[in-house]
């Protein structure tokens, strides 16, 4: 079930919240667990069993590791088994087809395989259970003996299918005891509505522009059109993903949870390094904590650091999808980060801010081309057109038309990518005057209604038998 759907907004959410608030404190986790299972089963009626099995396995593994902590060898053995099983499940469902396909490409044999449907959210919840298992082993967190609480941690519907990747240590206390207040609920509502508007009003609309551009054949595409497509995608992915994260944070607050911020105005970054501190923060933190640092991080000399970085970025790319594009995209960032770290880091500081900003945006946008392309070949061709190789012309009327009719949308998206709007809003809402609070309320209500209008019309789909 998507947050941005009529069923979620007007059936699932009201019912869940109502029951959740009506039952006494100790039953709230059960309600949340059941609701989350329904939420997941709605989209994955079969794979929900896989998720339940994964919960049971990790629950038992946690207890097993904790019991063996006295004996380092046995504890390590349990940990290795638990991690291996989790990765195998993820590998089997997400990378099996990709692996066989890649093998078929290099080997003279043709291995038959059947592509499995990817269970929704498996990359997210696997990383969450791994963080739990590893932290229990490290003694960083207490083992969770309550199956319901553990189930809630893994399945919690706000972050189940698109993050943020909540580390167990961050919510350990909250699973037992959390503050549920009306004020927090209101705060959550603001986050939620803002996220919904980002997703429905901006991501979906810029998405339409991107879809239109990507359907054009390369020989018919002008440089301008290619750039408009790339800009549209740049906005689409940010507003889509960060909108979804905002909704997750908001829903979490409504339920009394505090999740970490997942995006921090990434397009304001003045270097690629900074971009990755601001983009999908929970994933970056995860890789840092559970891969980069255990590998030795930057403490083992320059060469090892470079190798470690490349491993992390290879995996980051692969995590985003089972295809060479994503690997390429990850390695691209690995290389950029290494260059920034060891070659131009200090010199970059001396360049005017505006130039650094443009430099970062340019490389991030090139990165997105690898990300949105269905194949590597497509990516190279698209990049070619962006820089004039193989393009029809520099400017054509298609490009001008797309620019004119989407200028306002792009302008709104650009302003929305900065902290300014948020600041101004903060001043209005928290200015302390009653009138202002009412005004803010009205603006959010307007955003909410407009989002609903766009949502309802998505299915506005006149039957076309009469078009003939």
């Amino acid at each position, binding site marked *: 079930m998507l947050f941005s759907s009529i*069923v979620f*907004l007007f059936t699932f959410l009201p019912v869940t919240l109502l029951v959740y608030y009506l039952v006494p404190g100790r039953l709230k986790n059960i309600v949340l667990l059941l609701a989350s299972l329904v939420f997941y089963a709605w989209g994955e009626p079969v794979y929900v069993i896989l998720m339940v099995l994964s919960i049971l396995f990790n629950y038992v593994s946690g207890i097993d590791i904790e019991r063996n902590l006295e004996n380092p060898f046995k504890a390590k053995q349990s940990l290795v088994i638990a991690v291996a099983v989790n990765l195998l499940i993820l590998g089997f469902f997400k990378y099996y087809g990709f692996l066989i396909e890649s093998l078929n490409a290099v080997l003279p044999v043709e291995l038959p395989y059947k592509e499995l449907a990817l269970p929704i959210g498996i990359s997210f919840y696997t990383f969450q259970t791994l963080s739990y298992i590893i932290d229990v082993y490290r003694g960083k967190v207490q083992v969770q003996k309550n199956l319901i609480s553990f189930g809630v941690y893994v399945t919690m519907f706000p972050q189940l299918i698109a993050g943020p990747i909540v580390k167990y240590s961050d919510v350990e206390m909250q699973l037992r005891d959390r503050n549920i207040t009306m004020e927090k609920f209101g705060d959550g509502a603001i986050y*939620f509505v803002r996220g919904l508007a980002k997703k429905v009003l901006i991501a979906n609309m810029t998405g339409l522009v991107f879809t239109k551009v990507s359907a054009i054949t390369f020989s018919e595409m002008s440089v301008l059109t290619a750039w408009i497509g790339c800009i549209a995608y740049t906005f689409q992915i940010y507003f889509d993903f960060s909108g979804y994260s905002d909704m997750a944070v908001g829903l979490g607050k409504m339920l009394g949870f505090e999740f970490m911020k997942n995006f921090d105005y990434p397009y304001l970054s003045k270097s690629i390094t900074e971009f990755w501190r601001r983009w999908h923060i929970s994933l970056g933190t995860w890789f840092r904590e559970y891969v980069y640092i255990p590998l030795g991080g930057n403490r083992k000399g320059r060469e090892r650091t470079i190798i470690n970085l490349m491993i992390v970025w290879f995996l980051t790319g692969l995590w985003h999808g089972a295809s060479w594009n994503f690997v390429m995209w990850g390695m691209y960032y690995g290389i950029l980060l290494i260059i920034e770290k060891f070659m131009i880091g200090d010199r970059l500081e001396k360049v005017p801010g505006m130039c650094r900003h443009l430099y970062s945006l340019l490389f991030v946008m090139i990165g997105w081309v690898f990300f949105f392309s269905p194949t590597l070949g497509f990516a190279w061709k698209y990049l070619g057109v962006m820089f004039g190789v193989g393009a029809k012309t520099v400017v054509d009327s298609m490009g*001008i038309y797309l620019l*004119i009719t989407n200028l306002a949308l792009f302008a709104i998206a650009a302003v929305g990518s900065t902290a300014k709007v948020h600041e101004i809003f903060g001043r209005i809402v928290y200015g302390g005057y009653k009138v202002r609070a009412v005004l803010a309320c009205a603006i959010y209500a307007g955003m909410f209604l407009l989002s609903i209008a766009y949502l*309802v019309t998505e299915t506005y789909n006149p039957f076309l038998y009469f078009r*003939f």
Partner: protein
Amino acid sequence: MALGFISCIALLVLADGITKERKFSEEENRMLATKPKASVETVMSGKFMSQYEKYKSDQFLGRDFWVSLKTKADLLLGKKDSNGVFKGADGYLLEEISVLDEASYKENMDAVTAFAARYPDLKMHMLIAPNAANILKEKLPAFAATEDQNAQLKRTEEIVSAAGIQWIDAAKTLNQHKNEEIYYRTDHHWTTKGAYYAFQEAAGDLGILQEEMTAFVPHTVTEEFNGTLSATSGYERSRRENIDIYLPEKNDTEVVVNYVEEKEKSASMYSSEKLEEKDKYGMFLNGNHALVDIKTTSEKNRRLLILKDSYANCFVPFLTPYYREIVLVDPRYYYGDLDDLIEEDRITDVLFLYNGNTFFTDNNLSGVLASE
């Protein structure tokens, strides 16, 4: 803020709960999804869930209100197209020109060529009506780019002329009259006036002599037409247009229209009951049917087969004085044997009549033309 959010949701949930379920949307001209029944099978496959989501949004209260809110917001942002429909000048909605489907087009052209070679004794003609976005280019929003339909037409003309089929140049005459009401503003069809001009151009090619031509007079049959482009795009939904029919000034030819598969006969080419529905263009020849046989009281002895789409429906009435029999075949619905039909009905003339957007993406014509 909490209160605001809760009351917003609660209000909509309540209001949605008390509105009655609708089965049909007049505006969108389609059946709306109704509440699906859950079974183990449909739940396990996820089918129930997707049907339920569709049901929820189809039945969501005040659909029309939300649609117009969205369209207004889009316009405010400067968007000029929606669902493949441009919002042009003077209230004209223009359907995007279709990209030619290379594979099916080639099959169609091969089939047409082979068909012409198989029936050297039949007089064959082809009329592909250009679409509004081609003829009324100036009405398109600034810089709006469309496919070059004239190139598609030119290419087709060359192929069929080489096969001995006479090409009727509708684009020429429609261009000459482009300042008149030859296309509907809210619908993708040409108006009866547009069809009339095309007929006058076609008459000579079809072998209709100037001195036999009767004069036609327009009569408005409805002023309440809001067409499919308006429904698809959400633009111009309050605009109402006229539909005219053109009747001969004198000695009206009588007809018997036989909807063969439906086993229904009518003494008129116009189905006035369709004027009560949303899609009023269906008034011409009762919409689209696989096979329609029209027998006339004309004293001519020619019998015409038309392979066609809906553009033909308002064109055919101009032809009845000149043919004893007119057989309409819509290849999208027709599964019969065309060779048998030609023989049994003693066909003497063939006309292909399509609009460009349908013809250049059609994948049914070649199948019907192929010999068994």
